[in-house]
């Protein structure tokens, strides 16, 4: 039996989707793409446990997606002193991950340099539009929210409204 492709998610990406009320789209993506969405325990701790402790309601929405099984949590035996950025990269390599979903400017470039395909939340949404799983009007609504919540900069609005498709290469920038 062929093993499902694995996509790993960073807290930045999960928090972005939570802040724009788009976490449910992960389930749509997972079913259509037939991929496994994974997070290491360090990411779970950060965006769920620490979030709940800090009183961030969006962390409960992320927790719900994990409880529903849309996103699975798995751990790798790693030194406890390893920074979460490193845990993400090492876990991705260990699990044979092809794609990393991340909304952190520097981290996505680091991941791209390591050979992973990187997708930001806005590109994740655009992919859904291209596959017919999200209509353009909803896409624009989510894009507005991403800009309003400062997940992407306002000066990129036109680019994301107009550009239908292109693969951005972060590894060389």
């Amino acid at each position: 039996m062929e093993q499902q492709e694995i996509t790993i998610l960073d807290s930045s990406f999960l928090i972005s989707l939570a802040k724009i009320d788009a976490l449910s789209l992960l389930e749509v993506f997972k079913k259509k793409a037939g991929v496994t969405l994974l997070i290491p325990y360090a990411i779970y701790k950060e965006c769920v446990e620490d979030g709940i402790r800090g009183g961030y309601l969006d962390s409960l929405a992320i927790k719900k997606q994990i409880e529903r099984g849309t996103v699975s949590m798995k751990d790798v035996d790693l030194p406890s002193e390893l920074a979460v950025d490193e845990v993400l990269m090492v876990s991705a390599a260990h699990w044979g991950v092809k794609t990393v979903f991340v909304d952190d400017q520097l981290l996505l470039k680091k991941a791209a340099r390591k050979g992973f395909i990187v997708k930001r939340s806005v590109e994740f949404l655009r992919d859904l539009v291209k596959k017919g799983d999200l209509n353009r009007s909803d896409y624009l609504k989510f894009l507005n929210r991403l800009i309003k919540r400062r997940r992407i900069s306002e000066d990129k609005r036109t680019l994301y409204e107009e550009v239908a498709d292109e693969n951005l290469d972060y590894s060389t920038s």
Partner: protein
Amino acid sequence: MKTLTIQLPEKLYELLVSYSRKRGKDVTDALKEYAQIMVWEEKKEEAISAYNEEKVTLRELADLLGLSYWEADELLEKEGIALIR
């Protein structure tokens, strides 16, 4: 605790007294509070610049400022800094 003796211009001293009264503190505590704010603001600006210049990730920014990941994320939003450009 270190003891610091400083000389202030009359005008600045009056402003400091006014500041301390507004906060219901004595002048020494008001000065300490103000110094802490200044140090925090300086650290914050440095950390945000480092993030903008792609020298640190969001997690590293959080570590620099002693914040949780969520707090650092919230700080960038409040400061109007886009996570991704």
